[in-house]
């Protein structure tokens, strides 16, 4: 579950290069949100990546749109509120299919709405831009889902995808 982005002189990529990656920012010793970042990492790599997949339990059924991790729980049940509602971090992603989730950047959620959160609004815009480009590339078959449904590849079978 990763997007490979090579050097490219577009505005989006210049912005991307100047930003520190999400987990290198928050999942570091001494950072007050280190444990939260580790929780999110585990949710993505183990719970979604290995155990359950990117099912509707974790993702809303929306297309053409970046989503937030951790997901908001669909049921209002005490035990499943902690990561979904009160969680201070948000990481943007795009569910291509149940086996492929592309992770973008994220940050601290400072207000109720993502767009009002200074730390998140531009990253959400970036994520949306990437989602649009990925969707267009999939539709034009410049990139496609691998035969085993586990990763994205170029039309010629190579896996370094340059946006």
């Amino acid at each position: 579950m990763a997007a490979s982005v090579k050097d490219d002189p577009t505005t989006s990529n210049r912005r991307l290069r100047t930003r520190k990656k999400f987990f290198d920012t928050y999942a570091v010793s001494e950072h007050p949100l280190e444990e939260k970042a580790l929780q999110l990492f585990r949710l993505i790599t183990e719970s979604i990546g290995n155990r359950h997949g990117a099912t509707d339990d974790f993702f809303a059924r929306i297309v053409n749109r970046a989503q937030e991790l951790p997901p908001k729980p669909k049921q209002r049940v005490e035990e499943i509120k902690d990561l979904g509602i009160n969680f201070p971090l948000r990481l943007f992603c795009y569910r291509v299919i149940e086996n492929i989730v592309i992770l973008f950047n994220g940050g601290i959620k400072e207000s109720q709405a993502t767009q009002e959160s200074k730390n998140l609004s531009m990253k959400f815009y970036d994520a949306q831009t990437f989602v649009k480009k990925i969707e267009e590339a999939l539709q034009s078959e410049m990139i496609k889902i691998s035969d085993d449904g586990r990763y994205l590849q170029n039309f010629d079978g190579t896996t370094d995808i340059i946006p």
Partner: protein
Amino acid sequence: MRSKTVDRLLNSTPKDVEIFVDWYADLVVRINQLLRENDISKKELAEKMDKKPSEISKWLSGEHNFTLRSLAKLSAELGEPLIEVPKRKAQTEFVEDGFRCRVHTFVSYTNLDTKTSGKFWQFPEETEPNNELSNAG
């Protein structure tokens, strides 16, 4: 190729954090499964999860009582899983030659290292029995 960051995080995540998140996700999936399959209300679900009637309204109102974290820490200390969520498979039952066949997955947990004070456990890899008949119920 896996990044250095992924390797670092895989190696540095505390066991209780891993368990906490695993349980959280399993609960999300399990609760959705139950609600979907049995068409039951949240109140009924609360009762099925052994909540006392007096706790139900508080439980449903969303007031905090994070016992999941303390259970995760306890499980890490004991070295044994305290809860287990069966993974539902789409094809668990089928009819063949006039027989109703059910497919079961059996999982056994074995503590491989007793010298580590029970702080770690290893899940054996799932294996499918070779004998097809051994799985028919």
